[in-house]
Structure formats: structure tokens, C-alpha cells
């Protein structure tokens, strides 16, 4: 149950509260370039969501099994060449960015093939924008966020599993779609307005985007409140004195801790 709540909060946060476009500023190029018509915007949003999900799946898998410090596959393969001790400390994370960008290219190729086969008119209307999804910051950003929650946390219990990673990616794409569709709707209206010449095109889009971002700021803190309300543990109780009888049975989790105690002086 707590898992579902966590997934729901990650999804809500990625889609609305920390919206990829309006809070993290990723995916701005298509936000300004492709948002002229609502149907194009919906198509682009769906394509990006599709690509993000596949890319997240690939990058989470590769990070967890190959790239992370101490990743199973790399350690197993390295075990054939070096001693077990050194093999366990293999850290391929320096290759992360290269792997991610190629995973994204592969995902875009895959989606391109799929769309060309099953939705030919859509493929034609996309034109050059479909391969350009490779350079959409939102997808690489999703991969980087997943990496920071998988390889960047010291505590194995807090590491993201595939469900959380996919939730972030998919609903990040949904949030991107929401933002770009709203912008397209507004721009369709703006086409009928008398905008001063210096502001036509990108400038007015950015200003409208700013007002949208202001509106979305109203969602701040919603996931915090929901998390507190839904996962209420026993509140910080008034501390009672240490019972000497229990002193020795306190579990210090040396045997259960997964990570090493570093002695630093």
C-alpha cells in the first residue's frame, strides 16, 4: 500500500508539481516550436511519452545491472579477469551519459519504426520532428533523475526500483503533454490577437509560458501534504528515559547494514 502511495506521489509530482517544462525547464525547444496547433501538440506529447518510457526502461536496466558501482553483471564479468575483491568495486558510471544518449537514440528509432508502420499519416505530419525528439532534454533529464535515485543514493533501501523509475518517466511525459497542449490551445487563440511585432513568435510564447509556470506554482507542496497525511507514522512521541535492561538489546544494524562503515580521521 505504501508502495502505491509512493508511486502515486512520484507520478503527481512529475506531472504537475515539478512539471518537466514549467519547473525544470526541460523540453523547452518543442514547447516553443511545436505548440502551434493542439492536434500536433497532442501527437508530439504522446510520442515523447512513449519514447521517455522506453528510454527509462533501458537506462534503469543498464544502470542497475551494468553501470552502477557494484552492479551485478559487470562484477560477474570482471570476476573472470580480476580477483573477486576488485571485481566487486567495478564502477562504470563514467560511461552513463554516453549509454543514456544512445539508449535514447535507439528508443527514438524504435518509436519511429512503430509509428511509420502503424500510423503512416501521423508519421508524415511529424516530418523532421520525430527524429528531433532525440535532442529533447526531457528524455535525458528523466534518465538522469532515475540515475540519481539509483546510483546516487548510498542506502540500498532507498534505491528506486523499476516501478518508480517508469512512474517518473511516464508521468513526466504526461506532464510535458499537458504543458504543451495548454500552450497550443493558448497560441491558437493568440493567433487572432494583435501582438506587437517584436514579441510575435517566441517572445510572446515565453511570456505566456511564464504565466503558466506561475499558475502551476500553485501546486507546490501538494505532494508534501499528501505524503504526510497518507503515511502517518506514530508521531514523534515524548521521549522516555532509556531503560537499562534494554540497552544491550538495541539493534545497531552492523550485521544488517548494506554499506560499509568508513572510518575517517
Amino acid at each position, binding site marked *: 500500500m505504501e508502495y502505491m502511495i509512493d508511486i502515486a506521489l512520484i507520478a503527481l509530482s512529475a506531472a504537475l508539481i515539478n512539471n518537466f517544462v*514549467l*519547473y*525544470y*525547464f*526541460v*523540453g*523547452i*525547444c518543442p514547447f*516553443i516550436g511545436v505548440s502551434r496547433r493542439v492536434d500536433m501538440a497532442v501527437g508530439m506529447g504522446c510520442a515523447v511519452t512513449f519514447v521517455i518510457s522506453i528510454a527509462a526502461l533501458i537506462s534503469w536496466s543498464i544502470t542497475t545491472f551494468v553501470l552502477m558501482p557494484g552492479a551485478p553483471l559487470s562484477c560477474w564479468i570482471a570476476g573472470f579477469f580480476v580477483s573477486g575483491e576488485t571485481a566487486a568495486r567495478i564502477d562504470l558510471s*563514467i*560511461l*552513463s*551519459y*554516453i549509454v543514456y*544518449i*544512445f539508449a535514447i*537514440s535507439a528508443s527514438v528509432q524504435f518509436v519511429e519504426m512503430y509509428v511509420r508502420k502503424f500510423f503512416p499519416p501521423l508519421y508524415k505530419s511529424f516530418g523532421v520532428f520525430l527524429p528531433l525528439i*532525440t*535532442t*529533447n*532534454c526531457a528524455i*535525458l*533529464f528523466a534518465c*538522469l*533523475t532515475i540515475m*540519481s535515485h539509483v546510483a546516487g543514493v548510498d542506502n540500498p533501501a532507498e534505491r528506486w526500483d523499476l516501478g518508480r523509475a517508469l512512474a517518473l518517466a511516464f508521468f513526466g511525459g504526461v506532464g510535458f503533454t499537458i504543458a504543451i497542449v495548454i500552450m497550443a490551445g493558448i497560441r491558437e487563440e493568440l493567433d487572432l490577437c494583435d501582438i*506587437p*511585432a*517584436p*514579441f510575435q513568435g*517566441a*517572445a*510572446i*510564447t*515565453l*511570456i505566456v*509560458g*511564464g*504565466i503558466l*509556470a*506561475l499558475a502551476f*506554482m500553485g501546486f507546490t507542496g501538494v505532494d508534501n501534504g499528501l505524503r504526510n497525511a497518507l503515511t502517518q507514522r506514530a508521531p514523534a512521541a515524548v521521549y522516555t528515559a532509556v531503560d537499562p535492561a534494554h540497552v544491550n538489546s538495541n539493534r545497531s544494524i552492523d550485521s544488517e547494514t548494506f554499506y560499509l562503515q568508513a572510518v575517517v580521521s
Partner: protein
Amino acid sequence: MATQPNAAERFAQGILPENPVYRQLLGLCPTLAVTNGLKAALTMAGAVAFVLLCANVMTSLIRNLLKPHLRIVVFTLTIATFVTIADRFLAAYMYQMSKTLGPYIPLIIVNCIIICRCEVCASKQSPITAAADALGQSIGFGLALCSIAAVRELLGTGMIAGVRLLPAAWPDWGVMILPPGAFLTFGLLLGLVNWLSRSKK
């Protein structure tokens, strides 16, 4: 084939006439994301300059070996490698700044400016011209970032690069530091640049 601009022209064009942010509208993600402080903006501009210079020169050196269908792969590989190097460098020697800039340094990989310059200039011209182009575009990018960062930081905190400029009575416009401020500042400055370039004609 039309005559292509030489090194000096590439350099000069990158700064204002073909400014990557204000005229070509490329690389908008870092423009909005890291401009809430002047120091962060300068660091990002420096990182992009390094990657752009290295990627341009490298691409230009191997330009005769590139064939059409694999060149994007080669560009991507080159850019990703140099971005990784820049990211590790920042994490080692400017750790706090690296934490501030966060995921936006690796996002340089998909920064359209670099791929665009590799495609348009470096894959067709000599390393010297490519280097000049990279420098010009980087200076233009840096100018754009700093202009936005200066406005946002000044109005948002009364300081520029940590130096207090406005009197203490200034009510810090918090919205400038937040996302809406980024969009609004950039939109208004873009309108200003458009108006200036129109009135010059």
C-alpha cells in the same frame, strides 16, 4: 557550393548577429534553468564553451572520414565524451557549483547549439574556422546567459554575483528566482532584442 564564411566572419557572427539564444533560439534549457545567479550562468557558459570548442575541433579533424548516415552517431559520441569530462572536472574542482548546476551540465549533450554547429560548420570547414566559430558562438551564448542572469539576480536578490547593489530596502522579487521569472525575463529580453534589431534595419 556557396562560399562559406571564413574564420573571422564565423567568430563575429556568433556573438550577436547569429546569437545562439536570441537569434537562433537554440539551447534554451540551460538559458532558463541556470540563470538565477550570475556565477552559475558563467560556469555554464564556460562548460558549453569547452564542449563546443573540443567537439568542433574534433569533428573538423575527422570531417573527411564522415559519411552521411553515421555522422550523427559520431557527433553524439564526441559530444557525450567531452560533456562527461567537463562534468567530472566540475565535480572535482568546483564541487558546490557542480551541485548547483545539477543535471544541467549533462544536458549539454542534447544542447542543440553544439550539434547544430558541428553539422553546419565543423563538418565542412577547417579546424581553425571551426574553432573560431565555436569561440564566437560561446561568447554569444555567454552574453545571452549573463544578460538574463544579471536581471534575474539583481531584481530577485538585490545582488549580482553576491555583491549587494540595490539598497537593503529593496523588496526582493522572489518570483524572479523562480521558474516564472525565467520565462518572463527571457521573453521580455527577447522582445527587446527583436525590437532593437528591427529598428537598426
